[in-house]
């Protein structure tokens, strides 16, 4: 644990300018990923998972701005890197796959050409050499008959196949970090499992660190050693998976666990989390953005800014953003 992490995100705040006022999509988001480690970012829809990924990649919408914070990748501050330095690293050092694989592929370009575009950009491979490498990549992601598929357009492929192509494209230049933003949403269950296995397997064989973004705690538990829980633009809890499941500290994590189907648990025991996310455009957002949904909330939770409580543990430190964390045993 002495080596510096591969990716370190610190106090990252992102705001979107909109007609209805600024949206504080992320506030002081911090987490780290070690070399070859697989972590999960979980949270319900709108909690800021995708915005976090986009801010790291430097592909936020023009309306979005990083207000403060640091993103260190292999010791380099990405937020202070020049546009061309960043573009050189994107797709080569760190890459991303997307929630809707069909939408993330250019609809009127063959998948072979799209992979070749990335190879041409970063490895200066052209023509037959690029084509051969693209074919190897398609074979690597277990697409049958890769030579023929090179000339396929995304609309000719199934959703799962498109996601495999997306993975081939992302991994073509052997990145050290892969951010997978809900890579299996919208796929059927068997395809989901196959895609997750593929990501896990390629990550292990290439020593690649992976950030798995999902709203499925079960999926996170299965594949990741560490789990970062996000809620309304905050990281509310960040802990080794086993500890998080055994004893969640943040009330939101506890509710999320209670709402997640698990073996040995009856479906009727599942609880819905009351309320919804607060309006991120509000000027007077409290330090705890969960307090309106929380039965433990009190006056201290309304402080304008809270600091995460950090506790060391054998598998790495735990952080929780709560003034009254749960300290009991299993949830």
């Amino acid at each position, binding site marked *: 644990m002495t080596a510096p992490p591969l990716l370190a995100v610190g106090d990252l705040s992102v705001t979107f300018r909109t007609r209805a006022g600024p949206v504080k999509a992320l506030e002081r988001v911090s987490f780290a990923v070690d070399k070859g480690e697989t972590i999960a970012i979980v949270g319900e829809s709108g909690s800021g998972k995708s915005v976090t990924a*986009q801010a790291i*990649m430097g*592909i936020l*919408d*023009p309306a979005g701005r990083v207000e403060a914070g640091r993103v260190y990748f292999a010791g380099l501050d990405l937020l202070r890197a020049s546009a061309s330095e960043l*573009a*050189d*690293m*994107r*797709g*080569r050092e760190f*890459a*991303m796959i*997307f929630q*809707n694989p069909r*939408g*993330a*592929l*250019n*609809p*009127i*370009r063959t998948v072979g050409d799209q992979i070749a*575009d*990335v190879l041409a*950009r*970063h490895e200066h491979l052209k023509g037959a050499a690029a084509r051969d490498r693209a074919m190897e990549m398609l074979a690597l992601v277990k697409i049958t008959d890769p030579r023929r598929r090179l000339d396929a*357009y995304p*609309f000719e492929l199934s959703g799962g196949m498109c996601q495999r192509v*997306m993975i081939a*494209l*992302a991994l073509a230049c052997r990145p050290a970090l892969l951010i997978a933003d809900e890579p299996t949403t919208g796929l059927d269950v068997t395809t989901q499992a196959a895609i997750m296995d593929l990501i896990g397997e390629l990550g292990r064989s290439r020593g690649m660190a992976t950030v798995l973004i999902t709203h499925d705690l079960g999926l996170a538990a299965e594949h990741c050693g560490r789990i970062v829980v996000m809620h309304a633009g905050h990281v509310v809890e960040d802990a080794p998976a086993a500890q998080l499941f055994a004893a969640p500290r943040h009330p939101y994590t506890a509710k999320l666990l209670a709402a997640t189907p698990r073996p040995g648990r009856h479906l009727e025991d599942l609880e819905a989390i009351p309320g919804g996310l607060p309006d991120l455009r509000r000027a007077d957002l409290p330090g705890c953005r969960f307090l309106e949904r929380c039965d433990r909330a009190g006056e201290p939770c309304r402080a304008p800014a809270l600091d995460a409580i950090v506790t060391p543990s054998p598998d790495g430190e735990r952080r929780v953003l709560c003034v009254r964390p749960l300290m009991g045993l299993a949830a």
Partner: protein
Amino acid sequence: MLAMIGRRLAAALPSIAGVVVVTFLLTRLLPGDPAAYFAGPAATPQAIEEIRQRLGLDQSVPAQFLTYLGDLARGEFGLSLTTGLPVMQELVTRLPASLELTLAGLLFAVAVAVPLGILAAVRAGSWIDHATRIVATAGVSLPTFFTGLLLVHVFYSVLQVAPAPMGRLDIFSSTPPPVTGLYVLDALLAGDGETALAALAQLALPALTLGIFALAPLARMTRAAMLAALGSEFVRAARASGLSRGRIVWVYAFRNAMLPVLTTLGMVFSFLLGANVLVEKVFAWPGIGSYAIEALIVSDYAPVQGFVLTMALLYVLLNLAIDILYGIVDPRVKVES
């Protein structure tokens, strides 16, 4: 591809048949009695009746329709009553003039509107975006005949840099040997630079008039389509893989944005064919539009019928051309058709 073209042409047959019927009926319903008109104000009833018989107007409407169909089948559009010349011949000589004008106008519009639309989208909210909006709004809000007259006033009367708005060539130049019927092109093909320049000078103002009118829809659609493409998930993914900005804008965004722009182009083209009529009037351009208008005024129905039919055919061909282009750009089309 050939099968697709064949199928599209077959699908167009019913609408062409419809146009044939409608043109026939419409022209019979035109106000005024052609026989009386051509007999002149001093004609006796017998003289009028004689002309009516000669024109076949004394027969029943179905009989007239059959005669009309027979003529069409032989490629005859009848005679113009005013000029006494076969309509077919007039259309064949005048159509290239209209096409030259429309194509030049469209070329100008595309050359200006597409880059403007792209720039406006790539730098959304910048001065170039606002300038594009102003140009586009001004373009649509000016009626073509007004733009035409204004251009003539400024460039011919005041600045005296443009030739007189009197047709396709000044009297000092001779018509280039016809190949395509487009004077500028024909002169260039014949290696006659001087005539090409003269023809271009005549063409400039009317084409500009049409082009300014076509700017707005094209610029707007290009901007909107580019914005949509640039905001799409696949452009985000392309950025995430580090592709250069140029590649993202051209290969990823622009090629996708071309699809709606092509559709708009087809619409604008057929629109311009219609707008031609007024512009041809202002610039004394010997196209089919001015021919049809003159005939319409005097109830000379054969040219009007010929004009409408020609336009319908052009329209079908134009849509076919757009579909073919679309099929080349968008691989998804072939499967669906």
